[in-house]
């Protein structure tokens, strides 16, 4: 009873996993599926390093019970590129200097992907509104903002 079988899609692949009910989505992604691109930063839903998309909406995978993944479709940073081809957003993060140490970058990319899906040509205000809670402590946000504008123009 303290375990549940969950069925979900991760980066397009169907998954069936037996999970202990106290575990979180990030535990299943990193420890069971080996998807270590999703980082655990603050563990309390503030920093955004563990951001993933659940049915297209960005959430903190450190706050989501693993059982809540049942029946959903999840995208992690590993699911953005296809066939080794980076997305325009990932390219732009490189060319515009949208990262430095890189620990926050998977979360930044996930949130920026959701932003571009909702607002294909975001204003500075929309970028600030969406990205403000993905903390970066190296670069500041100018490079991130430039990268999002550049990807939007592709």
């Amino acid at each position, binding site marked *: 009873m*303290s375990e549940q079988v969950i069925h979900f899609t991760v980066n397009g692949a169907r998954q069936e996993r037996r999970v202990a009910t106290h575990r979180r989505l990030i535990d299943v992604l990193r420890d069971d599926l080996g998807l270590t691109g999703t980082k655990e930063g603050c563990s309390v839903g503030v920093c955004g390093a563990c951001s993933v998309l659940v049915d297209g909406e960005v959430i903190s995978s450190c706050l989501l*019970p693993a059982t809540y993944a049942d029946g959903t479709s999840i995208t992690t940073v590993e699911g953005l590129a296809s066939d080794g081809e980076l997305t325009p957003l990932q390219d732009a993060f490189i060319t515009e200097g949208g990262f430095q140490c890189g620990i926050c970058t998977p979360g930044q990319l996930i*949130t920026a992907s959701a932003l571009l899906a909702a607002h294909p040509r975001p204003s500075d205000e929309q970028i600030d509104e969406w990205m403000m809670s993905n903390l970066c402590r190296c670069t500041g946000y100018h490079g991130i903002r430039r990268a999002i504008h550049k990807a939007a123009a592709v």
Partner: protein
Amino acid sequence: MSGFAYHEPATWSAAQDLLRAEPDAMVLAGGTAFTLLLRQGLIRPTTVISLRRVSGADGILADSHGGLWIGAMVTHTAVVRSPIVRASWPEFADAAARVATLRVRNQATIGGSVAHADPASDVPVMLAALDAQVIVRKPNAAPRVPIDEVLVDTFTTSLAPGELIESVQIAGRGPNTRAAYLKFTLRSVDDYATVSVAARAEVVDGTVRAPRIFLGAVGARPMRARSVEAALADGARSRDFADAAALVRSDVDPITDVRGSAEYKREMARVFTERALRALVS
């Protein structure tokens, strides 16, 4: 930390049956606060009943008078985006938009926020100012209870074991009804409030009547500014607001913590109460 028995009933009655069989079970809504409390060892549930699959629990409806019915499992983001909410109570949507981060708003629910009864949460304070009613599912009844009676203390509601929050209702507004929610954060905008003020009143030609004012994060529950309301009761204009707002100091009971000293919070309660009153007539 270890696993717990876990259920996802598909209907309210199935959830109630499970609760009757397991009176000590914890009820899970969006899961944000639950996951934090679990990780910190502050809760040790043996049985958890999630409402995520309860049919109809995530709906938003409006009546013909602009009143809102918001299911317990509606997320904050759903409120923020809802054309139905925007059409009748845009100020409520704006208050929901002030909660934490986009990620939390995408997961955390209105019913969960009420049930968690964190006095620093945004939505319960606004619901109190809007005279919201909580629909409580009891074993053989589903009474409407004013939210001011539901929120009794820090992390404590009036609900008895076996009872569930089904939805919240906000009555429609009159043509002269004005409302405002102001949130003051010290550190970053996604933080909990140092103090927040929710205010509602009837406003005609700059005169405020029938004010209802609640403050968040400055007491064990949303704190009603009774002294301020009384001072404004006979019809107040903007020249009266500063004196009335000063009375809020005796209506709140803040503690000293990382978000400010008790004395500082009392002073900010005064400042933001006056600003909320000005927002009503602007």
